[in-house]
């Protein structure tokens, strides 16, 4: 038999004015498990808590019911009281006599009857509570950042500056991501590489950062505080230690393939550095196109390398790292504009993508920053931008808005004006979405000062005629069909998730939406956390956003990581699910419903059973309700405990 103490609070008169405290005490005293039942003016006050502590000692209590306000208010207070008194803090329940009773009741009789019932129910539950110990998870003080775009760079630097070691894994041969491809950035038009390059260099030289470029994450196991990560460093064929970045090798390589960095507007060699300011500066050999790897002949680069850095024998290397937290910053990809055959991208040479436009206007791009159209190198005098290509189009593309392209197009229009002062510039839009600090002003400037014609209407077709592109559209304000003769057309093909986003999400066990963008835990209140504790998001991989937002998210993620890793151990509420191995039949129904992938397969006496990962379980109880064998229990909310509450309610006849 339990020895339970019941402590009924008056809350001044908040409770006592509506509830007959004496009757509550009287009825509680008569309950079998109750050793003492007392009342007090303000139970949460210091003397009130002392009353509890004293009673625990005096009656040798092993359970407590505090009949007072809402547990959402004072549960932590009274748990602490119990702990101070040497009793397990989870041996306590609160009956809500205030918010759920005295404050809402119409009359004293009803309120008192309800209070009596609630106390009885809680006594029944406490009689079945079991002591619980907080879960302590060890913490590895190292973080992993996946993706080295502006978001990944920022996250890595913030974490490293906080004194925590970081491993940054970037897939391509250099840091930088998409931002490295731009010339200028909206809304301030500052030079992208002037602000990005120093950060890239800082990453490479930071004592707390281990940079793995040309690398990918292969496997992630474990849980918050203790993730095990396997990363594969692809054979670069250039020794990073020896290479001094002189670039001599690039000059001799006979291979020419389209450059990814230049969005196929120019060629690169087989041994290549995506761009001159690449970090690390050492090139990599693309083995798919290298003649030596295809035919066994060439090795021209090796011959000229002054540092003897070329290493054809290099092999992929697998490294293992233990980390406590992970930031995912893998960025984005593009909608394939070739699907818009009506615009002729891919068959009309002068219809290009906005990324290609960035390269065409970039001082380090294939034209040295001169705006020339691809077909004949002519300076375009009439330029059309088309918004929302693949965005806001459920039929051929994505229903969502890509969010950055209205602004990027305004930026492009302004850049165009500065390069070709007498050009005619048109921008076809559905709506202009420029909701950021200084954004609307920027668009207005393009319209008012830079003489960019924004035309409301989504073009239907582009027809190529005599070296001109005829853009056929509606001008919705005129309500009429119009045709614009253009020398060059730029399509803002929408932002899409990385092709392999779903695979990465599955590897990490984090949620993703139907388009492949990773899901935050709560869109408003937990925007950088994921459903997996210890894994955070930054940048475009979570959804379309611009650089300021990507960087803000990166810093937010970094501070989350630092907060988490500032402790040696992570304490977690012990209210999690638990499997009874004897009863579990291994049906794994629980696994199906667990949103947090906290249930795993395990083995028990050569049988398959379920196992709950304590670091991952959030304690929602969905699995418990799903289990038809009664093998899954939720601590502090077990079937037995809740059933006891229910049956206790009806254990006594009350007046009807």
């Amino acid at each position, binding site marked *: 038999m339990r020895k339970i103490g019941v402590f009924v609070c008056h809350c001044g008169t908040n409770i006592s004015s509506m509830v007959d405290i004496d009757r509550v005490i009287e009825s509680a005293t008569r309950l079998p498990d109750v050793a003492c039942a007392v009342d007090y003016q303000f139970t949460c006050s210091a003397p009130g808590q002392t009353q509890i502590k004293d009673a625990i000692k005096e009656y040798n209590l092993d359970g407590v019911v505090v009949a007072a306000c*809402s*547990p*959402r*208010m004072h549960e932590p207070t009274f748990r602490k009281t119990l702990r101070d008194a040497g009793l397990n803090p989870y041996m306590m329940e609160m009956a*809500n006599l*205030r*918010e*759920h*009773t005295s*404050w*809402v*009741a*119409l009359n004293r009789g*009803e*309120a008192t*009857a*309800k209070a009596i*019932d*609630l106390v009885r*129910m809680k006594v029944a539950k406490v009689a079945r509570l079991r002591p619980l110990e907080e879960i302590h998870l060890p913490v590895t003080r190292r973080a992993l950042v996946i993706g080295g775009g502006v978001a990944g760079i920022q996250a890595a630097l913030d974490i490293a500056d906080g004194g925590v070691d970081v491993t940054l894994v970037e897939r391509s041969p250099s840091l930088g991501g998409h931002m490295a491809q731009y010339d200028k950035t909206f809304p301030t038009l500052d030079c992208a590489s002037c602000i990005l390059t120093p950060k890239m260099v800082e990453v490479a030289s930071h004592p707390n950062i281990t940079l793995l470029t040309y690398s990918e994450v292969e496997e992630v196991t474990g849980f918050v505080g203790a993730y095990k990560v396997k990363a594969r460093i692809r054979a670069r064929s250039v020794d990073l230690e020896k290479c001094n970045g002189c670039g001599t090798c690039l000059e001799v390589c006979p291979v020419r393939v389209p450059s990814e960095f230049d969005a196929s507007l120019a060629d690169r060699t087989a041994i290549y550095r995506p761009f001159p300011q690449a970090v690390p500066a050492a090139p990599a050999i693309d083995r798919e196109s290298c003649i030596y790897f295809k035919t066994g002949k060439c090795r021209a680069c090796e011959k000229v390398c002054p540092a003897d850095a070329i290493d054809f024998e290099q092999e992929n290397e697998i490294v293992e790292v233990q980390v406590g937290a992970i930031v995912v910053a893998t960025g984005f990809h593009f909608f394939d504009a070739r699907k818009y055959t009506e615009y002729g991208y891919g068959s009309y040479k002068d219809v290009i993508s906005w990324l290609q436009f960035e390269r065409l206007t970039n001082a380090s791009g294939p034209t040295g920053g001169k705006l020339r159209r691809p077909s004949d190198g002519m300076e375009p005098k009439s330029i059309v931008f088309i918004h929302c290509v693949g965005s806001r189009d459920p039929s051929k593309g994505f229903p969502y808005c890509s969010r950055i392209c209205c602004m990027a197009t305004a930026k492009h229009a302004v850049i165009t004006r500065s390069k070709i002062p007498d050009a005619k510039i048109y921008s076809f839009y559905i709506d202009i979405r420029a909701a950021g600090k200084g954004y609307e002003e920027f668009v207005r400037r393009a319209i008012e000062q830079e003489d960019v014609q924004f035309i409301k209407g989504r073009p239907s077709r582009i027809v190529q005629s005599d070296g001109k592109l005829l853009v056929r559209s509606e001008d919705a304000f005129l309500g009429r069909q119009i045709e614009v003769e253009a020398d060059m057309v730029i399509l803002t093909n929408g932002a899409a998730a990385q092709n392999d986003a779903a695979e990465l999400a599955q590897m990490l066990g984090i*949620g993703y939406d139907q388009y492949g963008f990773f899901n935050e835990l709560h869109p408003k209140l937990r925007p950088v956390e994921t*459903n997996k504790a210890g894994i955070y998001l930054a940048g475009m991989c979570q959804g379309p956003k611009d650089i300021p937002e990507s960087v803000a998210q990166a810093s937010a993620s970094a501070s989350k990581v630092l907060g988490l890793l500032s402790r040696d151990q992570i304490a977690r509420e012990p*209210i999690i699910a638990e499997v009874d191995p004897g009863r579990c039949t291994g049906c794994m129904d629980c696994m199906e*419903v667990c*949103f*947090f992938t906290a249930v795993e397969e395990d083995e028990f006496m050569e049988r398959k059973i379920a196992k709950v990962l304590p670091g991952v379980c*959030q*304690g*929602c*109880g*969905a699995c*418990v*309700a*799903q289990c038809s064998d009664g093998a899954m229990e*939720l601590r502090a*909310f077990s*079937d037995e405990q*809740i*059933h006891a*509450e*229910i*049956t206790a*309610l*009806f254990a006594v006849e*009350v*007046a*009807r």
Partner: protein
Amino acid sequence: MTEEYYPRIVGLLCNWCTYAGADLAGTTRIKYPQNIRPIRIPCSGRVSPHFILTSLLSGADGVFIGGCHPADCHYNEGNYYARRRFSVLKSFLDFVGVEPERLTLEWVSASEGDRFAEVVTAFTEDVKALGRPNPYSRKELED
């Protein structure tokens, strides 16, 4: 003692939304009938069909389940499970002869104190209107 029918209702309220909504009804002193006996659970997805059956068998006249609005679940999807299980159970109850009106599933957010009072009042009225103890309660079955 007058023999007015005073139904008792078991309330299974999720911690993050409906329980907090009920708290808010209290803080803003909205009055509503006190037939409901709230039981705090982490999430409406925790509600096993057994809880409802136990309640009805033990003599509850109604069962009120409260969860977060769809897409607002603290645990992301718990309320969807609740909804699925709920509709299955409801048709089962119909089958065994318990009026489906004795069972309700409501979405009440933490900021909807008034709504909590409203839906509880309405449900209490509904149950009252059924007018007799639930036919499934053990007592009734034994009689």
